């Protein structure tokens, strides 16, 4: 469905992506994790056709995104990190935009908007930034596109809304849909994303399902520091420890620990998960 082969991209002399390759399939909610500035947004923009890769091949449903063909655009929605609505009524805007998307459901939009507690009759520029974000997320989830690209959707949302966001995405995602959510706030997407892609500067450290991760790694809180573990960091509960799963034990994935572990064991992660 989404195929990236040796995709590279630079902003002037500053290289952001270098030979990124991956295959993504429908029916999954991918979490795109990475520190600030590693190229998560750039990758989403390449996938949505807003940027042209410098090198390599990128196809979505067999189409080249940058061609921005209507047949491609009607099946892809890109939710930017910062959405600034204009002097337009939320519902009017959504219905107007929805006309371009064959699978758009106005009822779904109104329902999600209602769950978020946003007034559809209000104008975008009269809403707070968080409310605007909720409105545009409601639209994104109701368009029914085959690919939904969400750039830091939890940014600007309050804590209850982040939990609501996770639930609404999980409820409204279909088996025919591929969702990619980028974030640097890894806790926000816990129990939602599977598989997980961790990006490093210029490359992909890991692209693996939760099942694969639990097969290869164990996560736990331990009273003592273990210097042999892949990752061991003290917090209020004890030592958050990530180890190689040598005995086939299943433990729930701690995404934050996984992310930090990947950053300190880059070579091992690349070799093991790619």
């Amino acid at each position: 469905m989404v195929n990236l082969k040796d995709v590279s991209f630079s902003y002037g002399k500053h290289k952001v992506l270098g030979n990124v390759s991956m295959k993504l399939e429908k029916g999954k909610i991918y979490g795109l994790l990475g520190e600030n500035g590693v190229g998560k947004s750039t990758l989403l923009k390449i996938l949505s056709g807003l940027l042209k890769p410098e090198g390599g091949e990128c196809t979505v449903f067999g189409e080249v995104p940058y061609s921005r063909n209507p047949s491609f655009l009607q099946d892809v929605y890109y939710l930017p990190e910062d959405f600034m609505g204009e002097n337009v009524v939320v519902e009017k805007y959504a219905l107007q935009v929805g006309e371009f998307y064959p699978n758009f459901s106005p009822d779904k939009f109104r329902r999600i908007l209602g769950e978020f507690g946003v007034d559809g009759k209000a104008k975008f520029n009269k809403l707070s930034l968080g409310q605007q974000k909720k409105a545009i997320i409601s639209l994104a989830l109701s368009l029914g596109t085959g690919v939904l690209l969400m750039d830091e959707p939890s940014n600007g949302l309050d804590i209850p809304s982040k939990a609501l966001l996770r639930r609404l995405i999980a409820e409204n995602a279909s088996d025919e849909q591929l969702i990619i959510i980028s974030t640097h706030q890894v806790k926000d997407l816990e129990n939602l994303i599977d598989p997980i892609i961790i990006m490093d500067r210029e490359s992909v450290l890991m692209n693996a399902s939760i099942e694969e991760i639990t097969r290869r790694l164990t996560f736990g809180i331990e009273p003592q520091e273990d210097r042999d573990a892949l990752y061991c960091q003290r917090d209020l509960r004890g030592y958050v420890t990530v180890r190689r799963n040598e005995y086939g034990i299943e433990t729930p994935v701690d995404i934050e620990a996984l992310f930090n572990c990947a950053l300190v064991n880059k070579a091992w992660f690349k070799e093991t998960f790619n």
Partner: protein
Amino acid sequence: MNNIFSFERFLKVLKYDLKMRVPAVFASILAFLAIPHALHVVMSFGQTFPVAQRVDLYSTMAAFLMFFAPFTIYSSFNNKQGKSGFLMLPASALEKFTSMVAVSMVLLPASFIFCTLILDLILVLLFNDCYGTVVSVDFMKLLRAGSAAFSIIGAALLGNVTFKKKASAKTILCLLALMILWGFGVTDMIFEKLLENGNADAEVMQATLRQLNNITAIAFLAVGILFYLLTYWRIKKMQIS
């Protein structure tokens, strides 16, 4: 699916532009139209406002409107979100471009002319002593003005999709630079003709000026077409970092 141009999709884009972008501008147009009349009422109430003066005034206002309206209607081009929203709208670059041209070059001027005539009629009915007769539309003049408007609107559309900030000011500066260059070229041509013919013969001068007018008209049209082609190319190839 036809990915180059579908009339149905074009109508959707046009409807989107008319519903989402134009209403915010329309109120400003009406206010803009009312200002000179309000000033006339306040400053010279009771004095006549002859048709010829009003025609000059409306023409100047129309020129301002033609140039500045695209910047206002498509002001979302000045921010990343607006641009990405425009580019991600499921329609082809040609459909979006055509809608832009239709709004800026046909619908907006037509509504301006319509509103002007209606307003003028109302004012004539209300203040017949001052306003006298209603302004009428001279289609030949309108056609000539239309060819100039074609290039001006083209420049505005191109400036709007090219410059990120202060697009209208930068477009004006570029147009001035182009005009200065053109002026140098024209002066050079006149001098050459004069040198060729020794003295400034009135007949030679007239023929030169006629030739010059024709060349200017053709150049204006050619530059206008170039502006539109470049605007389309910018929309097609635009990237958002």
